[in-house]
């Protein structure tokens, strides 16, 4: 989603995050049956930030939509809903979701430098209609207890900045002058306001000109008269001064109205009273803001590029360290201090490695949370009742994996909702099931792979129907015999869809094969299990192919290969007599009462030298997902921690990945070893 523009990237990233937060808040509110005061404040705050940043990016239309939604929640915040207005809640949820989708669409367009939606009247009209319905007969209270009203008035009045002044409730004033000719004074002023909002609630301060956020013309006023802010008390103003001091291009600032004039006093008391009355409401808000400020400080966002660079360098250090320690000159020389220091270095580099890898790990929680929305929308549209159960949301996986599993998971959830869960609660009840269907999404980290499963308690897969369909689409032959497992595998083939009608959500005939493709791109595998009438479980397994892993080195002729330890089940020496032949001439071996195919690396890769007699070499029993076989090589050279280097792109054009070559690693002596991928190697041997 990189656009090559730092400010835009930051906007896209931050706004995207806020929308996710917003969506979750609304989903929670919907489940709870209404907005709590905290929810409203939260939504108000989010929309306000979106409005501000959109305006800064000069995106008028998104800023306008955000502004209207903010208004809507302003009404809610000020007037709690009456009984008869509760009926508008459903419309309100829908509207906010619609708003979220609108913003997401716009962000997507921005990221791809496409023109934004021009006509936003539809959504604006809906918001206005709802706002009218909500505010109803209740008039907006006039007065200056909120900065918002000033803004609105000022905007309708066409900004006659000259007569404007800050609210009387805010006697502690601060006048800021910017450096002459620094430009964009109105936005500089707005940035101050934005920073001050972190610790001052909306109503507790005001500023003039009040339209700095939207009106570039206000820059003139700021240049001429300075930017005037008013605060309810001197404490807030002191904090504001530190903000002003920290801001750039500020020429000077002056304090005004320190000593309240007699006629000001009662007003101030009244304000104090008002704020006391507002106390319980305003307090948690302020605390929340404070907590958020602290939270922000302990987290930073770093570009993935930098993390990639870091991983690469750490990889180099690991190699350099092992090259240094295994230097030929050191062999057989006894040096106690050196050995001790080398051990210390090894320990430190191992730690450095762990940390640099953990930096790239993010929990799947965000991706999982997004599925709530899918289940909600689909339940509504399809008239089904279903709940989503999340398990293992805190499982951490590499950032690149998180980015690529979102779509596959979404496809799987949609499939479960569309094809799995029975059409109506009544049908489920008649079958003796809970009327509310359950879709379970879980993640698990086994140390060598991440397993993601989507399961539902719906009707399961009808083998007969699937087989019929497979025969129709030419994937299966009518007189063939297929096991249930074979039949389930048809579901993963391109162009297969059991649904005869194409629905809005799934059944386009793409879907599961797209899931399979994208998971395989990550080096993973997909499998389906289903019992008719009991539901279906789709399992994705993604190996943790991180930059650094444990590998077993083996030699074939002059070549050195590395196989990730996680694939290796066992290695053994066997005799010629243990090898069996199948009817096609393929070699097999019997292990623990089962037969496994034998693949000779020498033959598969056409390596000139190397052992031919089984008793001269070694068998390595490999397992990856459902695949299990034995690889024949000359010798095992030992276990080593390796850094995976991708193959040069030029070589990818020769499709060597399909031959089970997934990358290279540099050995301690500077030579290169080729990393093998158990699953692709098996597939390649099948083709051979």
């Amino acid at each position, binding site marked *: 989603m990189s656009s090559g523009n730092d400010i835009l990237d930051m906007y896209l990233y931050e706004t995207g995050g806020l929308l996710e937060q917003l969506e979750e808040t609304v989903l929670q509110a919907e489940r709870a049956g209404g907005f709590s005061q905290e929810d409203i404040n939260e939504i108000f705050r989010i929309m306000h930030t979106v409005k501000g940043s959109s305006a800064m990016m000069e995106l008028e239309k998104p800023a306008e939509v955000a502004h209207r939604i903010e208004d809507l929640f302003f009404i809610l915040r000020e007037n709690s809903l009456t009984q008869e207005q509760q009926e508008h809640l459903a419309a309100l949820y829908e509207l906010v979701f619609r708003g979220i989708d609108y913003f997401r669409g716009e962000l997507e367009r921005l990221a791809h430098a496409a023109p934004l939606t021009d006509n936003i009247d539809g959504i604006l009209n809906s918001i206005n209609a709802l706002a009218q319905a909500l505010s109803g007969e209740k008039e907006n209270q006039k007065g200056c207890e909120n900065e918002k009203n000033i803004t609105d008035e000022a905007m309708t009045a066409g900004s006659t900045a000259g007569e404007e002044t800050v609210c009387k409730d805010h006697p502690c004033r601060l006048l800021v002058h910017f450096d002459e000719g620094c430009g964009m004074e109105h936005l500089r002023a707005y940035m101050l306001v934005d920073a001050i909002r972190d610790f001052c609630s909306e109503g507790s301060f005001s500023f003039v000109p009040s339209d700095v956020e939207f009106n570039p013309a206000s820059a003139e006023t700021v240049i001429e008269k300075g930017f005037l802010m008013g605060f309810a008390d001197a404490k807030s103003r002191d904090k504001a001064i530190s903000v002003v001091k920290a801001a750039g291009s500020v020429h000077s600032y002056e304090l005004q109205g320190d000593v309240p004039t007699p006629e000001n006093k009662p007003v101030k008391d009244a304000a104090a009273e008002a704020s006391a009355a507002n106390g319980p409401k305003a307090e948690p808000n302020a605390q929340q803001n404070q907590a958020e400020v602290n939270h922000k400080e302990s987290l930073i966002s770093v570009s993935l590029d930098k993390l990639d660079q870091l991983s690469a360098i750490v990889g180099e250090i690991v190699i350099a360290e092992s090259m240094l320690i295994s230097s030929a000159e050191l062999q057989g020389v006894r040096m106690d201090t050196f050995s001790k220091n080398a051990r210390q270095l090894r320990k430190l580099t191992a730690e450095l490695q762990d940390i640099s890898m953990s930096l790239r790990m993010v929990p799947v929680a965000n991706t999982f949370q997004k599925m709530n929305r899918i289940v909600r929308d689909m339940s509504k549209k399809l008239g089904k009742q279903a709940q989503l159960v999340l398990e293992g949301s805190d499982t951490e996986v590499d950032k690149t994996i998180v980015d690529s599993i979102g779509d596959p998971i979404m496809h799987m959830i949609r499939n479960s909702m569309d094809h799995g869960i029975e059409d109506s609660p009544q049908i489920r009840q008649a079958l003796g099931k809970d009327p509310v269907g359950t879709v379970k999404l879980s993640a698990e980290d086994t140390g060598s792979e991440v397993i993601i499963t989507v399961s539902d308690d719906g009707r399961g897969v009808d083998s007969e129907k699937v087989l019929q369909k497979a025969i129709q689409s030419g994937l299966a032959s009518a007189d063939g015999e297929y096991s249930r497992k074979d039949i389930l595998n048809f579901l993963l083939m391109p162009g297969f869809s059991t649904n005869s009608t194409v629905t809005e959500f799934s059944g386009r005939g793409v879907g599961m094969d797209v899931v399979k493709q994208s998971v395989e791109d990550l080096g993973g595998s997909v499998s389906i299990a289903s019992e008719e009438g009991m539901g279906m479980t789709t399992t994705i397994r993604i190996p943790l192919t991180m930059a650094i892993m444990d590998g077993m080195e083996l030699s074939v002729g002059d070549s050195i290969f590395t196989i990730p330890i996680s694939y290796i089940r066992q290695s053994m020496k066997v005799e010629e007599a243990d090898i069996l032949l199948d009817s096609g001439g393929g070699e097999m071996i019997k292990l623990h009462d089962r037969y496994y195919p034998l693949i000779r690396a020498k033959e598969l890769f*056409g390596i000139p030298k190397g052992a031919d007699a089984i008793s001269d070499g070694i068998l390595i029993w490999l397992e990856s997902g459902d695949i299990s076989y034995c690889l024949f090589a000359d010798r095992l050279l030992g276990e080593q921690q390796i850094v995976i280097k991708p*193959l*040069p792109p030029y070589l990818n054009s020769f499709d060597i990945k399909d*031959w089970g*070559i997934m990358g290279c690693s540099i050995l301690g002596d*500077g030579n*290169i070893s080729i990393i093998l991928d158990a699953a692709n190697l098996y597939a390649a041997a099948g083709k051979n």
Partner: protein
Amino acid sequence: MNTENDRIPGAVTEASTSVTRKYLIFISDGLKLAIDAEHVVEIISQFSITFLPKTPDYIKGVFNMRGSIIPVMDLSLRMGKAQSTAATLLLVIKYRGTQIGLLVDSVDQMAELDDSRLLPPISPASQPFVSAMCAIPDGSGTMLVLDCERLLSRE
């Protein structure tokens, strides 16, 4: 095929205004070949090549250049000749982001040449990887300019 320039693909097409380039002249299988010095990264005499299975013959494998994995191409095999036994030098080039090591016999010299002196190759069909030819300024013979684009193409 109207003008001379049209027949010179690759790096020298913008030769309408006279441009002077530096060329590295090297020897592969008895031929004097030249490459725009701009593309040359490094010349390496000590290297160990790791065989990479399932690649065409002319890809001899990969080698480790200070932590980067670089493919190695045998230039004479790539040009459809027999494997040169004298190929002992690795000429690492970088062309449009692709780094590759060319296995060549030896390096001859650097020459500075005006683009206008380049001539289209004789019988281009039989030598697809040559984009132009030119007399070497010191009079030591003729050089053939290598077409990196074609050399790295994935046909």
